């Protein structure tokens, strides 16, 4: 099944629901065949591993990032009948309560939408070339060494 997707890397604050809404308007206007949309928004917290975090810097590998995210969407599309996928990921310096990532998936049925959204999110966390460096309120910097478990 041919699946549409849009992958956006942004280096300034973004409104995930606004972008999802715009994408739906521009890409699915007049479409009445999707019944299920599942999304996930990751937001920067002000704590991690017991410490207060003041800001974070998200580094990535630009040439690889979109390529890898496209591979992940390809794989999801092979597993589930998806109609559209939108991925937005922030890079650069970011502050608590700002959005880090949006994954939104459109499908005819809810099972596929839920499964695919979660699959893409987990794969993104484990394969997409992004790295977080936290600036603690103590003044110290540290690289996040691994992601928390998603299941």
């Amino acid at each position, binding site marked *: 099944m041919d699946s549409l997707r849009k992958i956006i890397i942004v280096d300034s604050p973004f409104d995930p629901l606004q972008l999802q809404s715009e994408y739906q308007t521009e890409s699915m206007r007049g479409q009445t065949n999707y019944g299920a949309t599942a999304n996930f928004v*990751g937001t920067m917290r002000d704590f991690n591993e017991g410490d207060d975090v003041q800001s974070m810097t*998200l*580094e*990535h*590998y630009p*040439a*690889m990032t979109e*390529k*890898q995210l496209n591979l992940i969407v390809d794989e999801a599309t092979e597993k589930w009948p998806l109609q559209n996928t939108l991925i937005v*990921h922030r890079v650069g310096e970011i502050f608590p309560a700002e959005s*880090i*990532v949006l994954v939104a998936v459109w499908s005819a049925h809810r099972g596929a939408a839920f499964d695919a959204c979660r699959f893409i*999110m987990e794969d*993104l*966390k*484990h*394969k*997409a*070339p*992004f*790295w*977080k*460096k936290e600036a603690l309120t103590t003044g110290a910097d540290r*690289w*996040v*060494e*691994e*992601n928390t478990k998603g299941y």
Partner: protein
Amino acid sequence: MSIKVLYFASLREEIGRGADVIDFPPEETSSSLSVEQLWINSTGQQSFPDNLLVAVNQEYTNPQALLADGDEVAFFPPVTGG
């Protein structure tokens, strides 16, 4: 043969630079150059760390993969996006 090497995140900071361009004289790579050999050559380290990730031309591969002239090889720690 010329290879572009990239380092990211904590690895970039440890190594102290983000990129190398390494030129191998033809006689040194008459047979083949693996990712692991490149790593040892470019960083001076003894071996390929267990949790080190590598991508050749922006796709994940393993330390035994063989390189070709012009490849872009990226070394980086476990990813932590999302």
